[in-house]
């Protein structure tokens, strides 16, 4: 837990309180995704305002902020899920390991194989557990034969910490699992494609504390191989799992810094207000 004593800063007169310029450090030592001046419009609604952020290699970065602040929208820019919203328009530059992912030539299908996403509500397909995990490898043609596919499915379930619980019932529907198991199934399904980055959009908000703890443990392990961007409403969760935290407010990126700095010594008044529970 962050040290709440750091609240002494609250009254410091030089603390900035305007929105528009990001405070802290948007740079990463070893960036994997670089977003520059990203703006997102839903029709006339300017949902993301001029956000620049670097996401490090094998780093867990948490996006926090009050509801409607644009953190999920920003997350969805990173694998072009906004493409499926007709009124959405994205400007700016986002590169993934040097590749421009906003360009018209880039096929979002190829991008999404590299940048997986786990949603807020567990959404397994109404198919068997096996088919849920095997779906990604199948559509991308990752397995040459049944044995390889079996291997991918088993490894992915193992890495998602689900294999032991479902090994005897791989052909039963994935929708029959508990909420926490379903979410881990969705994570297994995502890593089965062997992505480089995993986006998580409030992955634990529909889960009980025990299932949440399991997913967080899982994130530690996954962080050894993947860059993880997690949107969360739980400050404790952000503090537990992330190395860096980005605070969004009304579509702007207000402050980015290392997790302990944000929670112990926030530099922006809005960040301060949010993490101390005065807004949000």
């Amino acid at each position, binding site marked *: 837990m962050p040290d709440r004593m750091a609240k002494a800063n609250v009254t410091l007169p030089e603390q900035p309180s305007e929105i528009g310029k990001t405070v802290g450090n948007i740079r990463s030592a070893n960036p994997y995704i670089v977003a520059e001046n990203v703006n997102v419009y839903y029709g006339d609604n300017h949902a993301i305002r001029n956000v620049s952020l670097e996401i490090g290699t094998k780093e867990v970065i948490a996006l926090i902020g009050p509801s409607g602040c644009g953190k999920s929208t920003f997350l969805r820019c990173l694998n072009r*899920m906004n493409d499926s919203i007709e009124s959405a328009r994205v400007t700016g530059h986002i590169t993934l390991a040097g590749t421009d992912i906003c360009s018209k030539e880039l096929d979002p299908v190829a991008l*999404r194989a590299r940048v997986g996403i786990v949603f807020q509500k567990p*959404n397994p397909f109404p198919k068997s557990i096996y088919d849920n995990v095997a779906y990604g490898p199948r559509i991308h043609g990752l397995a040459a034969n049944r044995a390889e596919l079996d291997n991918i499915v088993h490894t992915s379930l193992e890495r998602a910490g689900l294999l032991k619980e479902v090994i005897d019932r791989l052909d039963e529907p994935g929708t029959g699992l508990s909420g926490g198991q379903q979410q881990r199934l969705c994570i297994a399904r995502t890593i089965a494609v062997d992505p480089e980055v995993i986006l998580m959009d409030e992955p634990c908000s529909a889960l009980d504390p025990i299932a949440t703890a399991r997913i967080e443990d899982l994130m530690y392990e996954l962080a050894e191989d993947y860059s993880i961007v997690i949107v969360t409403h739980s400050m404790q969760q952000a503090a537990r799992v992330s190395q860096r935290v980005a605070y969004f407010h009304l579509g702007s990126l207000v402050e980015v810094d290392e997790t302990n700095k944000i929670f112990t010594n926030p530099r922006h008044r809005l960040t301060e207000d949010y993490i101390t529970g005065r807004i949000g």
Partner: protein
Amino acid sequence: MSESTRKKVSAGLARRRRKERVFRMTGLLATTVGIVFLVVFFVDLIGKGSSAFRQTFVNLEVNFDAAIVAPDGSVDLQYADFDALARNALRGLFPEVSGRGPLRELNQLLSVGAGYQLRDMLVENPDLLGMTQSVWLPASSNVDMLQKGNIDASIDASLRTISDAQLAWIDALQRTGRLELHWNRAFFTNGDSREPELAGIRGALVGSFYMLLVTLVLALPIGVAAAIYLEEFAPRNRWSDLIEVNINNLAAVPSIVFGLLGLAVFINWAALPRSAPLVGGLVLSLLTLPVIIIASRAAIKAVPPSIRNAALGLGASRMQVVFHHVMPLSLPGMLTGAIIGMSRALGESAPLLMIGMVAFIVDVPAGLSDPATALPVQIYLWADSPERAFAERTSAAIMVLLGFLMLMNLVAVVLRKRMEQKW
């Protein structure tokens, strides 16, 4: 809660309960009225129509006299006088009848179908030539109506279609056990006929079947494809709104308008044959398409967006999302819509009148371009016929049509239950 608040609440309670009771009684009344009408309809229909499934037959000792049917040694199936065989057999039972008039009256007891039946027997078994055999031959529709109690024998002879002499013969036949009601096979194996006792629904059934086949083959794939395109791929703009409004309007267009369209486009312009199930099926496809599109779009809309997002997030293309996830989940709804549209098509008569399927057609159609009629049109034709015996056939044909409609709706329900997936 304070005393005064509690009083206010309890004062209103009686009024609320009364309102609820009135509402419930109104609902009950409406349901009862509906059910009563349905019961009356079915009782009336079955009461009038069920007698058509049985038919009066006369038992005769028929001598397949070679001198009559094969005067020159071989049987001429086209011109041989098979009717004479039946007439002679009947005359053998009443040897006292003589003179042209009385003999003609006696012959009128038999259906003109009697001769055809004897011919068919001889074709099937040529050894019968020269032999005598006991045969049940169809009686004329007047005899049949008398047997079923639809002709009142007590009224003045000039007011009924059966003469006193005929009554006496019928009485004699009945006393000797030669007049019986049998299962009316002809109703299901024959096409239409001017003689009610020979008229059947086979032609109309086959015509309806061919039309529905054309409708299914055309309307289902086109409708589902249109629904998928409009729901999943088409951009949302003024054009798609316009299309949506027009599809909804088309579903409400009177069916006869589709008949006029079919007449103008398929028959006058494309020169397709009149009265053909092909054209009927095309017209019914147009009629059914909006229903299928609307039902399919509703089924596609009901697929949770989380499933689409999951597949998109894994890198599935839009096509793969549709065919791997959306289609399987919405198929039960699509099929239900299709079957409901098809059962509406099965019951349509108005558009078929415009494209010539109302013609009197005796033959059972053998293909899509043969002249044919359809069940509802057959019902319309029979309901229009003056002969008393067509009344019960009209009801019987309605029973068959309703039977098929119920069967199709049952299939829709079963399909939906079977294929429904939970998530």
